[in-house]
């Protein structure tokens, strides 16, 4: 391990200071540690070292060594390599470290490498009982995040269709990650855990986000807010379940409490199907009173299942 680390430190020091693209051949003859006997042994060693550098986050790229564009060499530009200093205080580092340990992505939590890069934090074992499982696979989300930040077009498979989109933003809501993507002038939302065969294009800055774009704008806060209809539903909740309805509706509905403890809520609904599904959770403790067409839809739905 010692030899590998020495060789990588030498390689990185060289690439960061040489100021021009350098070929593998030049590296072999200049940097300490590349004294492998055969070409094949050198090639294998060098490939492994490049992988290791990329794992660490070192932006290693290829560029032409001359203006006639005959030969390519390796470049690490200091400005692309260095983490801009966010100016964190120690309290902020600790808070961030603890938060990133509490939240998990698909069962994984943050590795210490991130907080080390940010200046380290006392390794207090998190005794905090708060946690969050954010779902979705960290590798896919990482690729999408990079594509969003660097404005690279992506292609993927989604519910048996091939899609190409400009990844505008990423949102976590109601327990799931969503990609907000632009297709022409339209914005579409894709659930990240249904995205497969993701390919990120190489060109950076391939699109421009609409001015003032915010990924969470217009994002539904409740399932029945995601849809294309617009109707106000009036629902009466019995006293026994009114507390639960109030808690889930929060400030998203206009509510009137009655003397007997029951509750009438006026709810703006974009997806009647989702509202009906939610209301069934209240069993016979809730009644969809108005409008008549929604009420009939509820009754028809109740008659249909299994």
């Amino acid at each position: 391990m010692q030899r590998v680390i020495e060789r990588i430190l030498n390689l990185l020091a060289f690439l960061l200071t040489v100021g021009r693209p350098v070929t593998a051949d030049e590296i072999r003859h200049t940097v300490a540690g590349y004294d492998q006997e055969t070409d094949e042994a050198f090639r294998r060693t060098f490939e492994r070292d490049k992988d290791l550098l990329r794992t660490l986050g070192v932006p290693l790229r290829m560029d032409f060594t001359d203006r006639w564009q005959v030969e390519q060499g390796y470049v690490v530009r200091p400005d692309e390599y260095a983490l801009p200093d966010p100016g964190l205080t120690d309290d902020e580092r600790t808070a961030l470290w603890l938060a990133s340990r509490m939240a998990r992505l698909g069962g994984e939590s943050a590795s210490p490498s991130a907080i080390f890069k940010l200046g380290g934090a006392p390794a207090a074992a998190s005794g905090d009982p708060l946690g969050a499982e954010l779902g979705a696979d960290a590798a896919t989300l990482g690729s999408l995040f990079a594509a969003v930040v660097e404005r690279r077009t992506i292609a993927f498979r989604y519910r048996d269709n091939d899609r190409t989109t400009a990844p505008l933003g990423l949102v976590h809501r109601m327990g799931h990650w969503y990609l907000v993507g632009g297709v022409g002038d339209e914005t579409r939302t894709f659930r990240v855990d249904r995205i497969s065969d993701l390919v990120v294009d190489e060109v950076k800055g391939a699109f421009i986000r609409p001015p003032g774009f915010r990924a969470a704008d217009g994002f539904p806060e409740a399932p029945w807010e995601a849809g294309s209809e617009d109707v106000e539903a009036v629902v009466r909740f019995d006293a026994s379940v009114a507390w639960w309805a109030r808690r889930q509706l929060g400030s998203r509905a206009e509510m009137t409490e009655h003397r007997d403890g029951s509750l009438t809520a006026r709810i703006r609904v974009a997806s009647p199907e989702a509202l009906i599904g939610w209301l069934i959770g209240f069993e016979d403790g809730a009644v969809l009173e108005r409008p008549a067409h929604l009420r009939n839809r509820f009754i028809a739905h109740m008659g249909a299942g299994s």
Partner: protein
Amino acid sequence: MSSARTAERLARILAMVPWVIAHPGAQVDEVCRRFGYDRDDLVRDLNLVFVCGLPGYGPGDLMEAYLDDDEVVIDMADYFARPVKLTAVEALMMLAGGMAILSSGTADRALESAVAKLTAVLLPEEGIVDVDLGAEPGPVALLRAAAGAGDVVGIEYVAIASGETTVREIEPWRVFAALGNWYVTAHCRLAMGERIFRVDRIRSAAPTGDRFEPPQDRPPAGVRYVPGVDDTVVRISLDATARWVTDYYPVREIARDAAGTVVEFSASDPAVVARLLLRLGSAAQLLDGGDAAEVRSAIEDLRSRVLARYR
């Protein structure tokens, strides 16, 4: 030699070196605490840095790195004056974790400013990444504090399956968000075992004044369902619009084709299955076998009770 361990060691060196360069006079203890070193490991890494540098590799080309009593000295290493930028996964995990805990409404000021500073350097525009765990049902903060301090909490819990209200004393271990809901994992003194409760179904909660010893290793955040011998087990055929069920419920997939997916569904109570099937309507079909008969009668019971309200 594992390349993962090599990467970890290199990552720590490439973070420690810039920090020491930026803090002349840094003390051994401080560096160790920050980067999780013990003194011997730190000395080993400094010795390694000491033999590396630029081509020529003579005294003027190598970095200087050593301990001077309790001071860590690194010199001639200006090219390593800044840490490597975060990888996409590292950046996302720090940002998303910070935003998630912030949105729980129980975080402190330091996290708020940390997330703002991190956003400023990691995102080209604000608002392109957004994490919200959802409106926090009442007792989350109380349960978090009780779990931290070891306070027993008395709760009034309305069971999801039966709608039945029970009063219990619980020893809360972990409070977490998953799948769009908040949960608390606890030792339940009524059930005399570990149970997971949905926080939004806890109608009221208050410390009893009793104490307990919080467990050394708290169970991880995540909903686990362990089927019991008395569970209701049925097979359900889901069409494409109902496929989301497989993401939210612990089902076992039996078959999948163009027409849909057949899953085995188990629940502690037939009422849970009945409610789900009525909710899915014609998008799902209960298949014969297993406890289908029991579930059918639960469906009929629920259907007639609900429809009675609409006559």
